[in-house]
């Protein structure tokens, strides 16, 4: 069998070359090749991630949703769905690091400023000593591919990750976030964005974002297939064709949509029909595709009235519906290529978005209520075990790497701290996880089936909600249940290793 040059096993042991390999591989590559065993009959894995997807806008979680998510619902029916999944660390960049390394991002103690990533708590590049899902898979002989338009993953801080891939398809269509990478040099003129711009945002950074977004779209968008999610899913389809001959493979398809701006292709936005023009669209002719000042605004500060809010929710739902359609096309391709029966389909989102709840619109760091932290999470087993079941386990983003490795029969590095969820398909339970603990940057989230606590870094502002009575988390009952907040605070502390860290904004971790 063809094999890369490697040390004899004896020499490998005696010189401790396993340790050297991690260095050697990236540096020179040829001197030593790590071998990792994998199962002979390993399936393929297709990992689909959509950014900013709220669980309660997905039909499988909430049949009354205004979005049409037929494909995700069907995926849930043929797989197992996790009732209440909370990513271990949010938002985007933090969750991606958890997914790719399998290590917990909570409590962001290892945060180091990594420009041009945002100078916000927890936004760290993948650090040199962290394991990488794709690297371990590559060493085990799995073909790895990743398709994404996520502006962080295609940016300069993720070169080490992209280097581990056999097939990498970055997509630079997220015009609004081009500034993180190569700045976009052809922004639209101000006149072209007036129809999207809320008057309250007319003098903010959102103007630049919209100008870049509209500028990119006017240059490159010809039809629906040029919208970002479509481009990513098409990239996934192309990759699948290529990967069919290179099984077993791991393919990540990571779509930044339905992230704002919420400008789905017009066919998904039915605002013209049946007098559905609402709010500011009716009065001023403005379509609020970017309805807040990133990361969040109050409804009051951006002058969003209830009708306009309904419009914003429709726009978000349309964006999700169109992303879902293209997920469907990707899954069809999997079927057409005859791969569906030996490919695991793993779907999750990183976080949601607040659309008017609690008087907030956007993603407010100190207010990660269920609409932010409750995300869809489902796994379809190739042999359809557990099809159509719902699972109470608090599955999370840091379980992804270990679970995928287990599907390939590859040992997960010990540093990966997630659980192996494949045991569920054997009728067993993973290690009990009675509480979920997470952070949205410097805000802590802890909860169980009944309670959820949101706390600031110091723990001086702890909010507690009783979800069975108050699913939208409107009624803070912390004052009446200090025993519960104390318990959840203790859980957070234990999970964080003994103490919770302290941060100084734009500087770094102070200690703890």
């Amino acid at each position, binding site marked *: 069998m063809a094999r890369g040059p490697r040390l004899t096993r004896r020499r490998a042991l005696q010189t401790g*070359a396993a340790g050297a390999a991690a260095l050697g591989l990236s540096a020179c590559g040829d001197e030593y090749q790590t071998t990792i065993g994998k199962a002979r009959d390993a399936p393929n894995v297709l990992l689909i991630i959509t950014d900013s997807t709220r669980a309660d806008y997905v039909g499988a979680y909430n049949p009354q949703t205004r979005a049409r998510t037929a494909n995700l619902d069907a995926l849930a029916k043929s797989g197992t769905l996790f009732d209440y999944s909370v990513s271990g660390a949010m938002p985007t960049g933090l969750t991606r690091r958890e997914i790719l390394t399998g290590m917990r991002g909570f409590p962001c103690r290892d945060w180091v400023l990594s420009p041009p990533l945002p100078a916000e708590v927890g936004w760290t590049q993948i650090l040199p000593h962290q394991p990488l899902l794709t690297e371990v898979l590559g060493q085990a002989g799995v073909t790895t591919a990743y398709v994404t338009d996520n502006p962080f993953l295609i940016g300069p801080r993720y070169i080490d990750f992209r280097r581990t891939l056999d097939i990498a398809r970055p997509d630079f269509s997220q015009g609004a976030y081009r500034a993180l990478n190569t700045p976009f040099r052809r922004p639209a003129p101000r006149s072209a964005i007036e129809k999207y711009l809320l008057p309250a945002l007319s003098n903010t950074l959102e103007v630049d974002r919209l100008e870049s977004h509209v500028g990119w779209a006017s240059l490159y968008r010809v039809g629906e297939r040029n919208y970002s999610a479509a481009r990513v899913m098409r990239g996934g389809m192309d990759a699948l064709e290529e990967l069919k001959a290179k099984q077993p493979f791991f393919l990540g398809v990571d779509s930044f949509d339905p992230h704002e701006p919420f400008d789905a292709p017009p066919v998904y936005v039915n605002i013209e029909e049946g007098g559905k023009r609402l709010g500011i669209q009716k009065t001023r002719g403005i379509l609020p595709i970017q309805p807040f000042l990133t990361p969040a605004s109050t409804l009051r500060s951006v002058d969003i009235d209830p009708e306009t809010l309904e419009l914003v929710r429709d726009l978000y739902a349309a964006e999700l519906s169109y992303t879902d359609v293209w997920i469907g096309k990707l899954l069809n391709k999997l079927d057409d290529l005859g791969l569906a029966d030996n490919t695991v389909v793993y779907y999750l989102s990183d976080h949601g978005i607040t659309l008017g709840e609690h008087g907030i619109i956007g993603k407010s760091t100190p207010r990660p209520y269920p609409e932010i932290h409750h995300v869809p999470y489902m796994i379809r087993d190739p042999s359809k075990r557990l099809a159509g079941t719902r699972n109470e386990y608090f599955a999370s983003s840091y379980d992804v790497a270990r679970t995928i490795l287990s599907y390939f029969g590859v040992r997960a590095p010990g540093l990966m701290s997630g659980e192996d969820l494949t045991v569920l398909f054997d009728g067993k339970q993973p290690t009990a996880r009675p509480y979920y603990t997470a952070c949205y940057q410097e805000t802590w989230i802890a909860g169980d089936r009944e309670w959820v606590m949101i706390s600031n870094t110091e723990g001086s502002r702890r909010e507690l909600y009783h979800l069975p009575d108050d699913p939208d988390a409107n009624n803070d009952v912390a004052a009446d249940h200090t025993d519960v907040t104390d318990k959840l605070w203790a859980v957070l502390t234990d999970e964080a290793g003994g103490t919770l860290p302290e941060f100084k904004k734009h500087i770094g971790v102070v200690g703890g």
Partner: protein
Amino acid sequence: MSARRSLTRRALLRGGGGAAGVAALGGLSGLAGTAMAASERDPRERPNVVLITADRLRADALKSYDDVLPNSAHTPSLDALADDSLRFRCFVPDGLPAIPARRALLTGMRSYPFRDWRATAGVPAIPGWHKIWDFQPLMPELVKASGVETVYVTDNPLLSGPRFDFVRRTQTLPRSAGHTSTERSYFQPLRRAPLRREPTTAVLDEGVKLIDELKRKQPFFLGLDAFDPVDAFELPRQYVLGEGPVTLYSSLEPDYFSYQETVKVHGDGLADTVKDLYAKEVRRVDDALGRFLHKLDEAGLGHNTVVIFVSEGSIGLGEQGTFGHPAGMWHRRVYQAPLLVRDPRRRWAGETSSWFASTHDVPTTILSYLDVVAPGKMAGEDLTTLFDDDDLPGRLYFTSGIDAHVMAGDREWLLIGRSDEDQWRLYHLDDTDKPDDVEDKTVTAPTVLQSIREFAIWAAGGTLPEFGHASALRPNKPDEKTTVASDGTLNQDEQDAQRLGVAQGG
């Protein structure tokens, strides 16, 4: 073992692996086993596992290790075991001494850097000294739950309570009336026991007795943990109990509580005297081990039993005139302990690995042998990977802690720092050194220091904890204008940051 195809990526790209992926899905059902795919595993019974934990045995007390302590004991049983085992030459326990190292040995979670320390009643208030917390996984508990007969012999009083029903004692633990187990002084009564058997002997002899019973209940897991309550927080027994003439030199009070400072004593021939005494102890351990291994063979279990022999720590025997607990000592020998893994099929017998194995790798390894999926909280590596001719993930440096000290290093360098102050001492280790005459000056090598220090801090999660008198502390947050307005959105400060062009997250 069965021929396996560990496809390299390159081979796969060349087409060598094209056929490998056409899945026969029948094999999938077994994939969930900890690590090994069912399709590659011979359908055979799970092996038995014996875990022997020695107390403060230095790696260089074993003849089979590279450099041997002068005037070391003759250790035929240990050497024979080493010849049948894979040796880990650079094994440093994850945290020192007895209490943290054993916690890692049982939970598989790192005890370093002791951030979870909370002073426990009855135990000296030293960072790292506390019970196994309820939320931590417990390897013997998982083993037992998987249907394996589980017995763990130890006199460690911290292993008590409802979760520890698998623990068996060699003697009755003294209990003070009216105190629950968490309140009593764990060690004091034991110290006063007038006639105490040497713990390793006691525990291994108990193991000999148990083998006949366990033989009928295979597969079994037998833990033999020689926990020495005196050694656990004091000087070597030689000092305290007055064996030999050493006490004359050291002039220590019988109750001298000397954990935190390492004792520096000078005297002619003192180091030799101590080493002779130490050698006698090692000899006793070796005898007891020999009896146990002989019994194991006699019972016909030698070839379906994994034997893991590990020492929970090491001890200073006069390096730079220091004795006892190696807090802040700058000699690698006082941190290196033996780890021997004897595979039932004797794979890699007599070989040596320089990978930085540690105590927290042991539970994952044992669970892997028993086909139990290790909980994600366990941070160790599965050492059976090596027996499958695969590689362990890289571990560039070892990291360990004792008290507030942090030790990290590799085969060439040793870095010692204190978690409460950013002061680091770097030493260069020369393999050809004489143990009594080591370079005791710090070395200036900023790049090396930076690299090891970064790793040590990264391995600690990102920061090193600060310790108060009863727990690790959260520092006070420096004065900072609040960034969040009362309605939960951004205030002026944040918006200023935006205007400055600080990118916001997606």
